C-alpha cells in the first residue's frame, strides 16, 4: 500500500465512512433504494474534491451494484455517449445473478465538462438515455449553471454537495496522521484545512506531499504550498471583460470562461470601484449590475432560465458602456469586501443569529423583525436596568457569549 496515493488509500469504502454532506447521503440512499425503471436520474453537484465520486462508489458498494463509471471528458459526442451508455442502460435482468450483483449502476462524472461547441448533442443523448434507461443513472457536475444543463436538471433529482466544513476535515486529517504515524506540528493541519477551502482531495494531497518521508509535519513545509490556482482564472476572465469593446466580446468571455457566472458576477461587484474612478462610469456600471440582479431575482423566483442570457448581458453592459473613462491598473482584489468582512465577522454573526432566533421564538416574530425591532430595546433595558438582566437571560435563555455581546 505504500505507493498508493493517499486520496485512494483513504477513499471511503462505505457511505458511512464519508465525511460531511449528510443530506446528500440520505438522499442518495433513499433514491437508490426505491429506484425502479421509469424513475428520474440523480444529479450531484458541488465544488471539486467534496466527495461526489466517493459517495457514488460507496453507494454502489453498499447496495451491491456494479458501477460503470464514465468520465465525461473521455466520452463527449452524442455518438460516443450513445455507444457507451446505450447498451449498459438497457442491460437485462438476466445477467444480474450471473454477475453476483444487484445490477448495473451508471455514473457519468463531470457532465458540465462536455458541452463545448464540438460536443453538440452530447447532452441530448444523455437526456434520451435517462428517459429509457433500465438501470439507475447518476450524474455529477461542479456547477449546474451552464444553460445547456437545464434540461437535464428537469429529469433528475438534484442534490447539492457542499464544501466540507473545516472541523470535519481537520478530524479526517488528524486520523490519517495517526494511521501514518505522522506527528503534526501545532497549527499545521489547520493551515492545510484552511488552504483547501473544503476540498478534501486537495487537503489529503497537500498532507501527503508535505509530510512524505518526514515523521514530523512542520508548518514551514506547508507555507511553501500555494493555494490552488482559483483566483488566477478569474483575473484572466475579469481582465478580458474589462478590455472588451463590445457586448458580444464581453459575453463571449463569460461563455468561454471556466468560472461559473455567479463567481464572475460577485467578482465584478467586488472590483468595479477599483476599476472605475469616475463617478459617472461607476454609476453606470453599477446601474447595469443592479439590472442584471433583477433578472437573477426573477430567475430565482420563477426558475425562468431563459432570462439568464439577459442577466449575463446586463451584467457586463455597464462595463462596456462605461469603458472609456478613467481606469486604474489591472490590480484585482480577491476576495474583497464582503468576503473579508464575512470572514472577520463570522463569530459576531453567529451571536446575532442566536439572539435573533431566541427573541423571534419567544415573541412570535421572524429573525429579521427580532433584529430590527427588539434587539435594541433589549439592549437599552439591560443597559439602564441591570437588575433586569437575570430575568431577561432566564426568559430568553441566551448563552453567556450572547449575553456579553448584548452588554457591549
Amino acid at each position: 500500500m505504500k505507493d498508493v496515493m493517499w486520496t485512494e488509500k483513504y477513499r471511503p469504502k462505505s457511505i458511512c465512512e464519508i465525511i460531511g454532506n449528510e443530506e446528500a447521503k440520505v438522499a442518495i440512499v433513499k433514491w437508490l433504494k426505491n429506484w425502479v425503471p421509469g424513475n428520474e436520474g440523480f444529479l450531484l453537484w458541488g465544488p471539486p474534491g467534496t466527495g461526489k465520486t466517493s459517495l457514488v462508489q460507496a453507494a454502489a458498494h453498499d447496495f451491491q451494484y456494479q458501477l460503470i463509471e464514465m468520465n465525461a471528458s473521455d466520452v463527449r459526442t452524442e455518438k460516443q455517449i450513445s455507444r457507451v451508455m446505450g447498451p449498459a442502460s438497457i442491460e437485462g435482468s438476466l445477467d444480474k445473478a450471473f454477475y453476483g450483483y444487484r445490477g448495473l449502476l451508471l455514473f457519468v462524472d463531470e457532465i458540465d465538462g462536455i458541452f463545448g461547441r464540438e460536443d453538440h448533442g452530447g447532452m441530448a443523448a444523455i437526456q434520451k438515455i435517462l428517459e429509457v434507461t433500465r438501470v439507475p443513472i447518476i450524474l455529477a457536475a461542479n456547477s449546474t449553471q451552464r444553460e445547456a444543463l437545464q434540461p437535464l436538471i428537469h429529469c433528475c433529482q438534484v442534490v447539492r454537495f457542499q464544501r466540507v466544513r473545516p472541523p470535519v476535515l481537520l478530524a479526517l486529517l488528524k486520523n490519517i496522521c495517526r494511521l501514518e504515524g505522522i506527528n503534526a506540528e501545532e497549527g499545521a493541519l489547520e493551515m492545510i484545512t484552511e488552504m483547501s477551502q473544503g476540498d478534501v482531495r486537495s487537503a489529503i494531497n497537500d498532507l501527503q506531499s508535505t509530510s512524505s518521508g518526514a515523521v514530523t509535519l512542520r508548518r514551514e513545509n506547508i507555507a511553501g504550498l500555494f493555494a490552488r490556482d482559483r483566483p488566477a482564472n478569474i483575473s484572466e476572465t475579469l481582465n478580458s471583460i474589462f478590455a472588451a469593446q463590445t457586448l458580444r466580446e464581453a459575453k463571449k468571455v463569460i461563455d468561454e470562461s471556466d468560472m461559473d457566472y455567479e463567481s464572475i458576477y460577485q467578482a465584478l461587484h467586488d472590483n468595479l470601484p477599483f476599476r472605475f474612478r469616475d463617478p459617472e462610469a461607476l454609476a453606470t456600471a453599477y446601474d447595469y449590475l443592479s439590472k442584471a440582479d433583477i433578472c437573477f431575482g426573477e430567475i430565482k423566483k420563477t426558475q425562468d432560465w431563459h432570462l439568464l442570457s439577459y442577466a449575463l448581458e446586463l451584467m457586463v453592459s455597464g462595463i462596456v458602456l462605461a469603458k472609456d473613462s478613467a481606469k486604474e491598473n489591472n490590480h484585482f482584489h480577491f476576495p474583497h469586501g464582503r468576503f473579508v468582512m464575512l470572514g472577520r465577522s463570522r463569530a459576531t454573526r453567529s451571536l446575532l443569529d442566536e439572539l435573533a432566533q431566541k427573541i423571534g421564538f419567544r415573541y412570535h416574530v421572524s429573525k429579521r423583525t427580532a433584529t430590527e425591532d427588539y434587539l435594541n430595546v433589549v439592549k437599552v433595558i439591560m443597559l439602564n436596568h441591570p437588575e433586569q438582566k437575570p430575568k431577561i437571560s432566564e426568559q430568553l435563555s441566551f448563552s453567556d457569549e450572547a449575553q456579553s455581546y448584548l452588554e457591549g
Partner: protein
Amino acid sequence: MAQENEVMWTEKYRPSSLDDVVNQKDIIKMLGALLVSPSTMPHLLFAGPPGTGKTTVALCAAQKILGQTWRNNILELNASDERGIQMIRERVKNFSRMATGRLSGLSINVVILDECDQMTSDAQTALRRIMEVSSRNSRFILIANYSGKIIEPIQSRCAIFRFLPLKRDDVAQYLQEISHKEGVKLLDDGLNAITTFANGDLRRAINTLQAASAMEKAVDERAVNQFLGEIDKSDIKKMINKALEGDFRGARETLFSLMFNKGLSGSEIIRQIHRQILVLDVPEDVRIELIRVLGEYDFRLLEGANEDIQLSAFLAQVVKFCRRV
C-alpha cells in the same frame, strides 16, 4: 399568553383571547363566527402591515380552536426563517402525524405560517400541496404583509382577513393604558413622537415606549428621540456622507459592515436612509433627486437577488451627486 412576569411589554400585554383584542372589530366578529365549528372552518389568510395584530389574532384563534392543550397542537413557523419548502414540508408532515394521534383525542391541529409572502412562488405551490394533503387534520393560518404576493390557488383556499393599520388614536390609547399599568410618566409630546414614528405599527410603538421609559424617568419627545437616534446609528449618516463626498469604497465598507456585522436587512437600511435623506444638509433639488433614486432602488431591491449589490449600486448613484453638494 400574557404573563405578569414577562419582560417585554409587547408580550406582557398581548391579548390572550379574541375578546380582549380591542382593534380590528370587524375581523374579530367574522372570525368568531367561523370559529364556532372549527372542523368545517377553511384555512385562514391574514394580510396586513406589521404590528396590526395578525400574529396575536392567529394565536388567539388557535387557542380557541384547540382549547386547553393548544400549546401541544400548534406549530408556529416563520417562512422567512425556515430554510426551504422541504423543511416546512417535513416539519408540517411530522407535526400532523404527532399531534393528531388518537392519544391526544383531538381531531385538529393548527399550523401558523408567518411571513408567507416571503416564499417563492415555487415554494408556495408546494405549500398548496401540503395544505391539501393535510387539510383533514390541520388548519393553516397563513400570515402575510401583502396578500398580492400569495399565489391565487392558495388565496382561493383561504378565508382572507385584511388587517388595517391601527389608527393613531387607538395606538395612543393603548400606549397610555400600558404606561398607566407600568407606572410610566408618558407626556403628550412623547406620545406624539412615538405614534408618528410607529405609523400604525403597535409592536413598534410599544417597543419604543418601553425603551424610552428605560432610558428616562419621564417619556417626552427628547427621550423618544434619544432612543430612535440610538437605532438610527450614525453609521447610516456616515455612509451617505462618504458617498456624497465621492468616497464610494468607504461608503460601501460601511454598508457591508451594517449588513454583515450588524445584521440589518436591505429594506431596513433603505428605510433608515430614507429618514436621513429627509434631514440631510443638501440643496433641495439634490434631496428630491436622491429620493427618486432611493425609490427606484427600493423597488429593485424587492425584485432583485442580492441586497448588497442593489445597495452598492444605489451608493454608486449617490456618488454622482458629489459635485453638487
